[in-house]
């Protein structure tokens, strides 16, 4: 009998140990050293030859601001209009967010001229371009936009039952019950929907290069019925994701200004957020952009070089790895791969490919070496498009 108990205990310990090893493996693999690199991604449309871009007018097609109040099932709907000055300010606000994102891509030079901005709408702009009647001569293309905006605020209440528990207490298994009550849960919400059409028109020869129509929606709610278990998990995960994302941001980017998630954003804030999101999509479409990627570092090589790569000191790591490989009688393929990684990080893609090939020649079954070769080959395929787009500067 006692032998059986010992056996069961031993088996339990083995299971616990196995579980520990599995958890540790997941943890360690998640923490495997990696480098983050910025690589260029070509534009989705060909913008060859376009270097100088002017930003035209962003025409407001429609704005709907609605305030809805519900009491006992009766809705009162109130429309809030904007003055022409407010509409103009809104158009400038959205235009500025687009300009902001395009100006951060180093491949366009934005030319700020009021000539195109002052045109009333797209038809007037296209007419001017077709007639060649513009004065600003050095511009290659013009971007203009059209705006549709809906913002709805709601003040209402949801009706939902709630379980209320009662325990008499004072002793074990005391009298207890649960009653259900029907409760009104007041809430306020704001939801916004922004549709933005953006057009890039090449001048001389005149052609429309890209027209994008994107919509973004956002909604926020304060109050209402208590979240169910599923919603709580979802919002918890969302909060954790946001916390992680903010943790990865640059220290200077965190403002330190008080913000509460129990406050609904105001109209201007919603417009700014939605327009930024659409502008990012447009920038990816028409401009060469940089994206951050994460690649694995081989861990079996020179420790000092690994530390340098992790720290982003690629040139020093190249120096250390070259010295190590020159001294070694038998070359370590991990050192060769890491050397290739450093060349890739500083943009020497040709040398990186040769180096990755050297590494895989020594260890043909290594997946990360093969991935290195795959990345460079893919880049070579895309390179023609990128080079084409980048040469417009010259």
């Amino acid at each position, binding site marked *: 009998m006692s032998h059986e108990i010992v056996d069961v205990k*031993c088996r339990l*310990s*083995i299971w*616990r140990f196995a579980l520990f090893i599995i958890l540790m493996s997941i943890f360690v693999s998640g923490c495997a050293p990696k480098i983050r690199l910025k690589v260029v991604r070509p534009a989705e449309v060909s913008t060859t030859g376009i270097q100088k871009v002017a930003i035209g007018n962003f025409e407001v097609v429609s704005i709907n601001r609605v305030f809805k109040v519900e*009491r006992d099932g009766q809705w009162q709907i109130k429309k809030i209009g904007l003055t022409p000055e407010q509409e*103009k*300010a809104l158009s*400038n*606000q959205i235009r*500025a967010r687009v*300009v*902001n994102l395009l100006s951060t891509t*180093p491949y366009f030079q*934005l*030319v*700020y001229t009021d000539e195109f901005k002052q045109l009333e709408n797209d038809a007037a702009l296209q007419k001017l371009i077709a007639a060649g009647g513009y004065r600003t001569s050095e511009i290659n293309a013009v971007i203009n936009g059209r705006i549709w905006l809906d913002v709805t605020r709601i003040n209402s*209440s949801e009706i939902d039952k*709630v*379980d*209320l528990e*009662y*325990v*008499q*207490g004072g002793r074990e298994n*005391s009298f207890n*019950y*649960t*009653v259900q*009550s*029907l*409760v*009104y*849960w*007041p809430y*306020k919400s704001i939801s916004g929907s922004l549709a933005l059409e953006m057009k890039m028109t090449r001048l001389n020869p005149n052609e429309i290069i890209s027209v994008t129509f994107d919509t973004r929606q956002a909604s926020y709610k*304060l*109050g209402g019925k*208590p979240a169910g278990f599923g919603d709580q998990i979802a919002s918890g995960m969302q909060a954790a994701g946001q916390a992680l994302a903010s943790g990865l941001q640059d*220290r*200077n980017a965190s*403002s*330190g*200004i*008080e*913000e509460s998630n129990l*406050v*609904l*954003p*105001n109209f*201007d*804030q919603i417009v*700014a957020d939605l327009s930024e999101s659409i502008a990012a999509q447009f920038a990816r479409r028409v401009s060469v952009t940089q994206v951050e990627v994460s690649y694995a570092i081989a861990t079996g090589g020179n420790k*000092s070089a690994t530390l340098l790569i*992790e*720290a*982003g*000191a*690629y*040139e*020093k790591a190249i120096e250390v790895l070259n010295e190590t490989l020159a001294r070694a009688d038998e070359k370590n393929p991990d050192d060769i791969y890491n050397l290739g990684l450093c060349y890739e990080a500083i943009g020497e893609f040709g040398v990186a490919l040769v180096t990755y090939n050297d590494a895989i020649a020594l260890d043909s079954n290594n997946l990360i070496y093969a991935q290195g070769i795959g990345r460079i080959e893919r880049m070579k395929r895309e390179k023609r498009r990128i080079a084409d787009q980048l040469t417009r500067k010259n």
Partner: protein
Amino acid sequence: MKLNTGFFAIWLILFCLQPGFTQATQFEVQRPGKRAISRSIKKVFIDPGNINDTADKLLLKSEVMAALKRRLNKMGRFDVIIGPPAGFDPNRETVAVIQGDIISGGEVDQGQLTEKAECKSGISGLVGAGTAGNSSNQGITFSRRGMLCKLPTMESRLVEKGLSMGLSLLGVQEFPRYDEVVRVYKYKNLSLFAQVNLSFTQIGTNRETLTIRSDAASFSRHTVSPGSYHNVRESGDNAPLIWFWFRFTPIAPVVIREIGVVRATNPDSYRARWYEKVAPNIRDIDPKEKKEILSQLVHKTLTQFIQTISPYRTLIQTEVASGGNDRAQKMIEEGQYQKARDLLVSATTPDDLYNLGLTYEAGATTIEDYEDAMQLYSQALAKKPNSALFAQGIGRMEFQLRAHKNVRKQAAN
């Protein structure tokens, strides 16, 4: 084979001793501007006539211009003047002008919300309510049975569980009374928003806009009135009736629908409308504090623009090597970089070499300082090749030197 908490604790300690977990110090360092601006531009005009304030509901324009002038002048790169560009010959001198738009606004929202709270007797209930009240600034109400009611928070749950476990270990078994209540309360929300769109245009023999930025910042505060919390339904409301029912007719459920409706939570009910009119006891934001918040919003919206056109000071987080000269280490931690450099001038140990490099990095005024720092970090790493700290120093300097090279390349174009 035996796994115990001791093993885990040792592993945790070892894990936390990794470099990423050791205590780092913050240093203020100077970085060059992100866009290459010609050295010939020394005078910058902030043109009030070309800063559009149509949508500036918070009247931030003067604060924006003053803060921009103050911060740019502080860095010493430009001489900033508020006014239209004047008093220069564009054929002989190149100046720059800052213009743009300011969009700002604020909203105050007041209202009433409903929540389900719990009330518990005993020491753990008392302490739990105190913890919840303290950690979430909510109002604590009393149930009819005299218990404190609160919306539980993670802290209050942990405290209650911990206390109950502690008491049961001491042999004290709690059988607390427990009620759940529906309660209403009042809140006041304040949100402020600012967006600043600025462009930097050079005016000389040619006129060219060198950069444009649009940055936004927001502030929001949710305030509740602890005194406005008010129980409108308790689970114990019909306890005697229910007890009586179960005593004689042990059949469930008891269906009395009208009793179950909590009318006081309906915003259209007489009671709720009356309650809505009762002025909430919520302190409005202090004018002095509001001024401070608006100043923070302006500061944030201008930061990226300033960093684009001018050198700027920023914080980096790194460690001071602890194995070398103690006095120099302390001086670096206190920001006395020049004094520490004098002390470390003949450094030979890797930690001292690294700290000497740190003095060059933190007090950098030219790109050569970064090159010196890089050299010293490399010397330190050569003596101690497995130091992640020294490798990070080299990484930082390589990044800065690469950025500088890019800026030079852009300027050449």
